[in-house]
């Protein structure tokens, strides 16, 4: 690897008197990890904000092999459209782990900080919201699953006393305001999540999300797995983003181990990821229309999505493309015949989608529903750092395929749609545009598929080495950080699904609509519950 070190942010921090030190055992060099002093933690975030960097994630980890054994570390990551990703970390005090909040600079950080608080018992100082987040009421107060002394193998006894305590929702004393609790059990078959509405008549004053009902303990479960076991688990974090999550995990590991994938492998990964994007966008467009009772689109889109799933099964062995990536490669090569089939189907689907798009655009009743509903303004989108199609519909185009330009996207023509209205119709428009753009990319990749091997030998890195990757999945950027322990086993894996950030956008968007329009707006965001509740 000849990539130059990314010194831009370290220099900017230095200008402000914040001393930082590169970590030698972190890869890749163009996405460095800097260690700063604990006192500079919030200042560094403030400086990042001033430099208009995008907030990526904040998380914590126990000391790695190369670190001071008893210390907890707090990490955060930022991205800049020109200067790529930078990670910062700081050691916390051994006996009293606490760190200043950064959510006053980056609002999107507050749920992740609450997550750190729940999982490690780190106290975040000056936090605007100190309620537990992922840890629901029945959990024991002193249960901190990601600490070493927590036994992840035996079932945890619920705390009877705490189970009676109710979550402290935002409430309103006014008599004319009423609360509508929705979920986590819904009338249809959808993922569990709780929404608490404060409404006056049919007007929404506030909507608060409560998530964590599908908390699976993936972070804990990752610890002590081999990388290939971990890859399998990563592919199941969110069923609809199997390729995205697998790729993020695989790339973080490959960066850490300094394994270079072959060009053919990169192209096939690109094809998988773009196919996943198209399939999900088609399914969602249908589902959005179905929420407005326009079932025709739903049926047509389901049919197209099913065609894709069947071909995925034939060519890649799984309808939802699970387990299609390996460390250093991909599981299935694409034969010449399969290549032709994929090209043909991608073309056909792109044409059919354009046809459906014309029907969608010409049906006044559906247009009346989607136009002007669920608006997130450009400034809000930037403040939160909304990702993927949600961000792109509100003028915030963070796209890792361009910012990080990882292979194969460095060789492709990527057209990123830029919307500004930020409503349901804009999000649907962005999805239609992305289907068209991804189809072109898939065909470009298939027609220029490089020859060669699809698998590079995987050698686990030595203990203490970490890697970071940012992959543009269909929902948006997935940020993954992995650190290896002894024997090539995973010591800590942190992943941030784009939903973690986009869920915040939904809370804003629904304030502009009446109660019965919520499902439509929710579907246009389609954030993952499972991806959030790792």
């Amino acid at each position, binding site marked *: 690897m000849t990539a130059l070190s990314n010194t831009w942010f370290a220099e900017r921090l230095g200008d402000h008197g914040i001393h930082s030190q590169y970590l030698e055992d972190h890869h890749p060099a163009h996405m460095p990890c800097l260690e700063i002093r604990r006192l500079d933690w919030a200042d560094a975030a403030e400086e990042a904000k001033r430099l208009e960097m995008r907030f990526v994630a904040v998380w914590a980890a126990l000391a790695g092999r190369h670190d001071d054994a008893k210390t907890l570390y707090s990490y955060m990551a930022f991205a800049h459209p020109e200067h790529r990703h930078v990670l910062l970390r700081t050691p916390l005090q051994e006996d009293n782990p606490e760190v200043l909040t950064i959510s006053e600079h980056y609002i999107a950080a507050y749920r992740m900080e609450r997550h750190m608080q729940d999982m490690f018992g780190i106290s975040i100082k000056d936090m605007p919201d100190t309620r537990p987040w992922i840890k629901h009421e029945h959990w024991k107060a002193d249960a901190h699953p990601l600490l070493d002394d927590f036994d992840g193998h035996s079932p945890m006894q619920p705390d009877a006393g705490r189970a009676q305590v109710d979550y402290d929702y935002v409430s309103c004393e006014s008599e004319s305001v009423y609360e509508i609790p*929705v979920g986590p059990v819904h009338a249809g078959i959808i993922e569990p999540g709780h929404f608490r509405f404060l409404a006056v008549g049919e007007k929404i004053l506030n909507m608060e999300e409560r998530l964590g009902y599908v908390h699976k303990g993936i972070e804990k479960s990752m610890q002590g797995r081999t990388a290939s076991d971990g890859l399998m688990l990563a592919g199941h974090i969110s069923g609809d983003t199997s390729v995205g999550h697998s790729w993020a995990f695989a790339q973080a590991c490959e960066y850490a181990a300094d394994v270079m994938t072959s060009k053919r492998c990169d192209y096939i990964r690109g094809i998988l990821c773009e196919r996943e994007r198209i399939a999900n966008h088609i399914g969602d467009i249908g589902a959005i229309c179905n929420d407005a*009772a326009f079932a025709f689109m739903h049926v047509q889109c389901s*049919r197209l999505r099913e065609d894709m799933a069947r071909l995925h099964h034939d060519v890649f062995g799984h309808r939802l493309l699970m387990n299609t990536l390996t460390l250093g490669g991909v599981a299935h090569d694409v034969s010449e015949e399969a290549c032709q089939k994929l090209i043909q189907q991608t073309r056909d689907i792109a044409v059919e989608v354009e046809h459906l798009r014309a029907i969608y655009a010409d049906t006044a009743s559906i247009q*009346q529903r989607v136009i002007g509903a669920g608006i997130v303004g450009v400034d809000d989108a930037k403040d939160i750092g909304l990702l993927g199609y949600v961000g792109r519909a509100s003028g915030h185009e963070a796209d890792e395929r361009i910012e990080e330009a990882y292979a194969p996207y460095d060789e492709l023509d990527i057209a990123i749609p830029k919307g500004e209205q930020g409503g349901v119709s804009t999000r649907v428009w962005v999805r239609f545009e992305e289907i068209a753009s991804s189809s072109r990319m898939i065909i470009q990749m298939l027609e220029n598929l490089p020859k060669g091997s699809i698998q590079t030998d995987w050698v686990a890195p030595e203990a203490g080495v970490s890697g970071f990757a940012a992959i543009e999945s269909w929902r948006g950027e997935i940020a993954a950080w992995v650190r290896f322990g002894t024997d090539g086993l995973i010591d800590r894996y942190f992943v941030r699904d784009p939903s973690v950030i986009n869920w915040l956008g939904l809370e804003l968007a629904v304030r502009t609509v009446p109660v*019965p329009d919520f499902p439509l707006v929710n579907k246009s965001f389609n954030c993952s519950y499972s991806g959030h509740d790792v």
Partner: protein
Amino acid sequence: MSSIFFQLLQAVLMVMFAPLVLGFVSTVKARLQNRRGAGIMQPWRDIQKLFNKEVVLADHASWIFRFAPYVVFTATVMAASVVPSLLLDTPLSLTADVIALVALLALGRFFLSLAGMDIGTAFGGMGASREMTFSALAEPAMLMSIFVLAIGAHSTNLTTMIAHTLHTPLLIQPSIAFALVAMLMIAIVETGRIPIDNPSTHLELTMIHEAMLLEYSGRHLALMEWASAVKLLLFATLIIDLFFPWGISGDASLVTIALALMIWIAKLMVLFVILAVMETSMAKLRMFEVPQYLGAAFVLAFLGLIIHYMLEVAV
């Protein structure tokens, strides 16, 4: 004697046909969406399945909640059995008053809304409040539309009204067209179809009618679902009776009744195919636009009334 038999037959047919009608509409819709569909018997199978399931009641459900399905079903079936579908002059025809009909339906709706609120969930209350808001607007419009015809017939009795239509020579009456459009619009609201309500939705927050049924299960739910199917058929038959009664049998003989049955079914099929086409080609209205929609229906019916006085009475 035989007219009593045919009266009974008519009522039984209404109740038994109702689930088939739902099945017919969803099959036609499925075909329009290029699907095969579950077949017209599916609603029957669903109702049968629900009758075999146990009833799960909330702990704090009062007698109203348990009572409501029976009231709703009985009221709807009573309303359905007085609407002439095959035979014009039946023993019950004296009771077949349109205002009584509206009242019977209102009774069912009243209990349905009470049951929705009784259980104390947010959705039940929400559904009840929406249902009441819309029906308060729909009822006057419906009556207004019926009055356009009733004024001509000098009666609000259905049998008399039908007989009047049958015996007047076929003239172009613009007022009837207004009343018909208004009535069709109201029927969609009353039966909870697209673009007002979506009977097949699973999204609690968008529901009107279904929101009140969310807590029901087993035979209670079966009765409620059945009642709403009967209501759909009832409205279709009412529209046929009021606007296209030709073909209904005047005397209680087997041959004419059989003919009337076939004509009735044919007319129903035409109506429901139109409904299915409309539902396929349309998305739901924003809920805040429903009052405007109902306002438009009222205005149309009222215009029909005025036109009747201005153009038709003078002639």
